[in-house]
Structures are given as C-alpha cells and as structure tokens.
C-alpha cells in the first residue's frame, strides 16, 4: 500500500441540471481496500460508475496511474466490476461466465482453463462449472460474479453493494472471504456500501459521502473516533449529539455544566457539536453522576441493553450491560476522552437526539438503504 493509483480531481456530475456529485477530490492507493459509504442517493454508486467508465463526468478529471482516463471507454480500462445483483450472463453456464473476459482477450484455451479452474477454487465453487446461473443460490451467484471479475487480474476491482442481497450470516462470511481474496491477490478494491458495519470491518480507508459530497476520509478508527460532523457521527455507529460551547482548550460546556475534554484548537466560546458514543457512558447512582436522568425505555440487544435516558427533555441512548429498569433515576459519568467535539456544520441539530428512537429504527433504515440507487 504505497503508490497512488487513482485520483479524482474536482469531479462534478450532473444529470438534467441536478448535481449528483459535487467537487469530489479523492485519491486511491495501490492495493488499498477503500469503501465509499453513505446513505442511498449520496452519490457513491455514481462515483463508482465514473471510475468504471460507465459515466463521463460533467467536469473534473479521473486519473489512473497518472494518466487522464475520462474518455477511455469501460472496455479498455484495467478495471473490473462486481455489479449490484451480479449481472451474470443467463445464457452462459458458470464456467463460460467466468471465462467470458479471458475469451474476449483471446487467451489460449489452455490458459483460460487453468485460470478459470484456479478462480473456481478461490471462490469455492469447484464442481459447479456446468451449472446454469439460474440454478445457483444468491451466495453462489455472488461468488461467480467475483470470480468473473477477478479472473481478468484487474488492477482495480469495483464492487457495488455486492453483499446487499445476501442474508446476514452469509454476508459476514463473504466479508471475511472478500478481505482474504483482496489481500491474497493484492488488488485495489473500491467498495460501495450503505452498511457502516461492513465498511468498518473490511476497509483500509473509508470515504463517507452524503448529498454528492465527501464528508470525511479516514481509516475506520479515525472515522469512528473522530467524526468530522454530525452526519458522520450519526451515520457511523450511534451517537448522542448535543449543543455545547467550547470555553477554552479542553473545556466544554453543555447542559449547563463544564466538562473536561481532550480537544483543542477551537475558538473561545465557539458553539460546537458534542458527540458522546452510547457505549462510552458509565451509569452510576444518581448522587455520583455528572448528569442525572430517568430511564424511559430499555431494549435487550443480546450483548447489551439499549437504554434511553431522559436528561431534562433531551433523550440519550446509552448502551450498557447493566440493566436499569424503566422509571429508575440514574446518574452518568463521562471521561474526558469520551467527549468528542466537532465544529458546527449544516448537519448540526439534525441528528443525535433519541427522542423518537425505537427498536425498529435500524431495520427501517436498512430496508431503505437496500434499495437501488441510480
């Protein structure tokens, strides 16, 4: 992971006067696993299609190995794609689907056979050579799609929500499988997903997008621990986001109380967004707490309880292994390193309040995100 392979500079994409991508600047290193993460309609698939050569940007440049490739058609790029819902050829069997690219490149039948066989082994589909595509399960079709792309030994593999149609269990397995293949073959992966957990698990670098703009670029740890704005904080994991005032370096005031924190470099008395992750909050008895509130709802989640606590009308989500019954009056303590300070942004005030939180929230969000994005 060293050399820069792809660079997008001031990329703008407009359809019918509507701006889908707004000045995207991004570089992708060789052999990197980069994820474009964002809600449906954020422009992540469009970005991928520009890199793949299926869309020509309205303005801005796409550079590959330092050369401008805006006008190079898809079939001439050393980039292959695993399409959303696979797009396997229904008139060909598994073997011929995988061999498709090699036949176009006019490799010898012997070499084609070797490489297809090797690929079938990598994706654990040996013995499926002559099966019809329609007779395969979703997970098997998925693996054929990956094999069909990888067999061409591309420099870059683009993956457009490749695991979206699989069930949870299979998705987890395939995540590990993909990461393993990516490391074994040393290929740059550019991965599009709306699933933040998937992004955190697999990526070297995550690019969080919304409304056609890049919100933050960083490693999974950076993105999770140091979100740049309320949107990123809310989209990656759960967050309580509060209005605060930065009194001085390492001193922030919210809920009428001063707290110690570890952030510096803000203006004096600058209004800020304060992020507190639900799992960082310690529950203590009411008289020991920095803040006190009443539990309004508890949901058992397996590993922990999702506990909603009402602090003077503002509801927080606390994830804890301690069970606190509804109606109990509790206190919380916050450590300085658990308080993350962000500048105010256009997203301030839109996220981070759990007043309307319900257990179904996650599933609804997932169902929406699973829809197609054009």
């Amino acid at each position: 992971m060293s050399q820069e392979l792809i660079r997008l500079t001031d990329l703008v994409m407009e359809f019918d006067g509507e701006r889908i991508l707004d000045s995207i600047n991004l570089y992708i290193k060789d052999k990197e696993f980069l994820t474009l993460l964002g809600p449906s309609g954020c422009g992540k698939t469009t970005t991928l299609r520009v890199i793949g050569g299926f869309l020509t940007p309205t303005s801005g440049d796409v550079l590959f190995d330092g050369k401008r490739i805006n006008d190079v058609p898809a079939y001439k790029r050393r980039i292959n794609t695993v399409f959303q819902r696979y797009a396997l050829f229904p008139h060909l069997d598994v073997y011929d689907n995988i061999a498709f690219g090699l036949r176009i490149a006019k490799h010898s039948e012997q070499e084609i056979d070797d490489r297809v066989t090797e690929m079938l082994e990598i994706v654990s589909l040996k013995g499926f050579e002559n099966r019809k595509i329609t007779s395969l399960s979703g997970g098997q079709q998925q693996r054929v799609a990956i094999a069909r792309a990888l067999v061409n030994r591309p420099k870059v593999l683009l993956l457009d929500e490749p695991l979206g149609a699989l069930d949870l269990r299979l998705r987890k397995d395939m995540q590990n499988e993909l990461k393993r293949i990516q490391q074994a073959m040393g290929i740059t992966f550019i991965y599009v997903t709306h699933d933040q957990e998937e992004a955190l698990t697999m990526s070297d670098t995550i690019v969080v997008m919304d409304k056609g703009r890049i919100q933050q670029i960083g490693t999974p740890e950076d993105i999770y621990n140091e979100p740049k704005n309320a949107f990123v904080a809310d989209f990656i994991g759960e967050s309580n986001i509060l209005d605060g005032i930065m009194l001085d370096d390492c001193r922030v005031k919210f809920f009428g109380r001063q707290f110690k924190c570890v952030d510096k470099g803000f203006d004096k008395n600058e209004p800020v967004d304060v992020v507190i992750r639900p799992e960082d909050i310690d529950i203590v008895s009411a008289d020991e707490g920095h803040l006190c509130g009443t539990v309004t709802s508890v949901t058992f989640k397996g590993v922990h309880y999702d506990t909603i606590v009402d602090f003077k009308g503002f509801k927080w989500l606390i994830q804890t292994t301690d069970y606190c019954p509804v109606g109990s009056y509790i206190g919380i303590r916050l450590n300085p390193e658990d308080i993350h300070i962000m500048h105010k942004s256009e997203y301030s005030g839109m996220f981070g309040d759990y007043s309307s939180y319900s257990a179904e929230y996650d599933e609804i969000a997932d169902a929406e995100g699973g829809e197609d994005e054009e």
Partner: protein
Amino acid sequence: MKSKWLSGPYILWMVLFTIVPLGVVLYYALTDSITGEFTLANLANFVDYWPIFLRSIWLSIFATLICLLIGYPVAYYIAHCKPTTQRLLQMLIMLPMCMSFLLRTLAWVALLDDTGIINNFIRTLGLSPLPLIRNNGAVILGMVYNYLPYMILPLYTVIMKIDPRLIEAAQDLGCNSRRVFTRVTLPLSVPGIVSGITMVFVPAVSTFYISQKLGSPGTILIGDVIESQFKAAYNPNLGAALSLVLMVLIFVCVGIMNRFTSEDAEESMVTL
C-alpha cells in the same frame, strides 16, 4: 381450484373449434369423396403437389429471412429509443395491421401492376415498364410486407427486456460494441428470433391470397391449391389431406428450427 374453472370457457372453445374441426379434417382426409369409405388415396395424392409444397416452403423461408434481416435492426433501434418514441414507433409498426389484409395486398397490386402506379410513372419517363408483378419476387414482397410486424414485435419485446447491466458487464469485461452485440445481445434475443420466425413462417407458408393477387399461375402456393379444393374443384377430401400434410410439414420445419436454436435458450421453445 378456482383457477381451474376460470379456464373452463377457453377449454370448451378449444374443444369445439380446434379439436373437433381437426377431427373433421382428419375424417375427410381419410375417406373417399364419393363412397365415404376409408382410404389413404387422398394422402397419397400429395406427391402430385410436392413441387408446390416445396415452392411454398422455399418462398416462405426466403420471406422469413428477409423479415428477420429487416426486422432485427428496426426492433433493436426501437428498443433503444426513449419510452415516448418507443410507443410512437410501436404504433406505427402496428398501424398497417389495423388495415384489412386483403386491402393491403390489393394496394400492392395497384402499385406493381403492369399498368399500375409505378410502371405508369416509369412510362412517363419514357422507359419501358418493369415486370414487377406475377412472379416469385412479388409474392415474397407481399409476404414480407404483410408479416413484418409479426417479426418486429416479438424481437422488440425481447431486446427491450435485456438487462442493461448485462451490456455494462460485457463492456466491463472488455467487449467493444460489436462484441457486446455478438456475445450478449444477439444470444439473449434468440427467444425473440425464434418466435418471430415462427410467427412469420407459419402464416406465410399457408397463405393463398398473396400468391393469387401478386403471383402468377406458375407461382401458386399450396394454400391456393387447398383453397381451390374447397371452393372451385370441390374435393374437400383432398383439401383436407393436403392441409394435414402441410400441418405436419410446418411442425417439422418449426421443430428443426427449435432444435437449432433451443440449446442456449430452452425457455424459448415455441410450441404451436
């Protein structure tokens, strides 16, 4: 269980107007016209008409191929137009079908006749008139003109349904536009090709009106012969026998075609 009853009227219709008439045809074909006794003589008579059978098949195959060659690019073009344009073009394709078949064929007579519009125009230019009518070419022209929509519509439907992602997948794997066509679009439109060919070939091979109006006595088709057995010669037994033979020949032709094309597209089997 309800759905079973819903198909009742159609099954009754089929029995009354397809199965029973077929039985009648079979009965006539296998009985003597005068004595009414069982005989195979009617069927054996088809040997006398063999050249006419062959000509019917040959001309129909030719017309079907021309329809395919003209129809495929048109269908491809329509399928890649904007939806509003598609609807308009689709309507234009179907418009002639709303006009009477007889009238359309007669219009060609008016155009192609020795004293027709085209030859009159040629004469005014001081050239000698062309033999445009009463030959095989005119019959094929009539077939192509009348049956072309039946080729275009199934092709258009199939091409339109091809997932655009498959085209992108092919480009992604290194296909230029010519290869995308030969490797993906064409194989995936085989079901449309098969039904298009069937829908043109079958009516073309049994037509009689087109050959009567645009052909000559030397280019009569088997449909003409069958028609004349019922109307002019009044030998319904021979007519029925020839119909049976024609039906078998059509089955054989369509069967051979399906055998050639169905390997990649089993779902495309068109059964008559």
